[in-house]
């Protein structure tokens, strides 16, 4: 049990051409107070949907949470009324998104967007909210905060907008910040600035962060613990050091392997054959089996469970207790 957020058996499906397709299928994980947890995976693995499901933000989509439990500070969010859920959103759990260009209302002044949440959740008067908003803007490193209050998003650069997004998210001092690919759309030099800012906020305020990203580099730099997802499932969970040092799941291994790394020039990159399965046509058994180098017969027939091993978890037949050939199999690579 984790002391801030526990997700158990989360299952979310989308309706497409009258078919229900599970995009997130039985996801379990948790976050402790003040911790930075990363969810990493390739596009379509369900990492964003997981975060939206936690926030119950599947409005305006065909998505629907089908099963599971999301316990936040002892309360199951999935049981709350919409009205109570609104009190959680933005106040207890805040969220920032990938596209700083489109995630702010283009026709509303920054100040108003910022103050809206403050007035709503903290019940501040207008003046107090304004002061608080300016303070928050300053705390995320925005120069000329007073002027920016009266500007529109399009007048700011991408990095600035992402800072504003963070300011909006942090303005009500949430306990958990979900960051969905917060730096993907930014240039490297700006990405470095934003990551630095997030780390600082976390250490200053003790806010827990759920960092959703596809970039192993970002994970390695900021996260304490990492969850690897593939095809709507958690395939591995470990502390960041353990994960990069001794990845257990073949997918994690391959993923780390296939990233080109500066200073390690090779004539050929390692690459995973095949492609991510279509959610309509999921293979039986382990979803990674068709691309896996170590696949055994059982992998194609039966899906492995997420099993714990000391402080880490993985979902692979290679490590299931009744499997004898595990060392041998890995060693053969």
């Amino acid at each position, binding site marked *: 049990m984790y002391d801030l957020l526990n997700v158990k058996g989360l299952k979310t499906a989308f309706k497409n051409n009258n078919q229900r397709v599970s995009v997130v299928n039985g996801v379990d994980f948790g976050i402790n107070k003040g911790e930075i947890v990363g969810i990493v995976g390739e596009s379509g693995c369900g990492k964003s949907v997981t975060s939206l499901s936690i926030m119950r933000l599947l409005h305006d989509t065909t998505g629907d949470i089908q099963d599971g439990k999301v316990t936040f500070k002892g309360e199951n969010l999935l049981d709350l009324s919409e009205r109570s859920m609104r009190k959680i959103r933005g106040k207890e759990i805040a969220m920032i998104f990938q596209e700083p260009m489109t995630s702010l209302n283009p026709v509303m002044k920054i100040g108003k967007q910022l103050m809206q949440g403050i007035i709503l959740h903290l019940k501040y008067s207008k003046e107090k909210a304004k002061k608080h908003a300016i303070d928050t803007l300053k705390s995320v490193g925005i120069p000329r905060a007073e002027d920016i209050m009266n500007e529109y998003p399009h007048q700011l650069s991408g990095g600035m907008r992402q800072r504003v997004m963070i300011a909006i998210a942090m303005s009500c001092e949430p306990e958990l910040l979900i960051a969905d690919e917060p730096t993907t759309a930014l240039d490297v030099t700006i990405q470095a600035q934003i990551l630095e800012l997030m780390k600082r906020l976390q250490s200053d305020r003790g806010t827990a962060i759920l960092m959703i990203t596809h970039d192993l580099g970002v994970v*390695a730099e900021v996260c304490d613990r990492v969850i690897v997802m593939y095809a709507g499932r958690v395939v591995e969970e470990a502390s960041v050091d353990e994960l990069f040092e001794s990845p257990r799941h073949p997918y994690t291994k391959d993923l780390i392997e296939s990233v080109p790394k500066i*200073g390690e020039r090779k004539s050929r990159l390692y*690459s995973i054959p095949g492609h991510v399965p279509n959610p309509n046509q999921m293979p039986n058994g382990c979803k990674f089996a068709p691309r896996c180098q170590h696949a055994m017969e059982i992998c194609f027939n039966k899906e492995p469970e997420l099993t714990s091993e000391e402080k880490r978890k993985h979902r692979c037949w290679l490590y299931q207790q009744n499997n004898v050939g595990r060392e041998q199999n890995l060693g053969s690579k």
Partner: protein
Amino acid sequence: MAANNLLEVKNIKKYFPLSKGWFSAKGHVKAVDQVSFSIQRGETFSLVGESGCGKSTLGRLINGLIKSDDGEIIFKGKNLTGANEKAWRSYRKPMQMIFQDPYASLSPRMKIKDILDEPLKIHHPELSKETRKTMVQEILDVCGIDAYHLDKYAHEFSGGQRQRIGIARALILKPELIIADEPVSALDVSIQAQVLNLLKELQENYQLTYLFISHDLSVVEHISDKIAVMYLGNIVEISPAEDIFSRPKHPYTQALLSAVPIPNPKVKRERIMLKGEIPNAANPPKGCKFHSRCPHAMDICKTVEPQLKKVEGQMVACHLY
């Protein structure tokens, strides 16, 4: 210059006028400002830089998709500058492009065989239908797409497969130079590796020359022989790939390298944090365009624009040297 140069670009310049009318600002975005470099046969020359630095514009200028305002493009010893649209169409045959977004760069209403057949129809109308069909099949095979896909539409493929089709389309005319504009940045890591490997293989088999445009330094390092770093329309450094990563000269190159997150939690580095953001290209700083963010900025940097000069086998545009 050396006769081995496949492509030579001299002082090329492109200013985009800011839209008139409703918008208040007027003037020009200096997308590419006096850029010169040359590419030798068989090498991979990379352009790296952050968004808005003009690297993609430069790629399009070389292909003639955009007309340059000034400067010369010399390809295979022939000066292409000032040619009309009709002439450009024939110049493009030995100089093909691969685009960033594999979802958008293939016509959604054509079958794969028609997409691949189109370049042949345009440039080799003399070939028979059968010959063309065989050529299409051959090239697909080379690029790792099974022939039974010929009758499918682009949207029926995954991103990696589409990028392979895009490569096949570029390759079918047997070009000498391929301009690859961020060919892997829209792909997932596992697919990215497949495509990069394919590009390398093709280069070896067909003696291709690449102009590789990317923002991702780790990808660039993997594939390049020579790297040019761009900042706000200028090249600030040109170096052989090994050198640029082991001993970057320009402060911007240094900062860029240090900003790349490394997928290894054990590696802890001294980070060079750049101040602020890239200035507006419509109104860049005077002198060295990087001086506003440069940790080593001197007084001269604010007034005099540095020129590229040779420093220890690397070309650097910086007053530090």
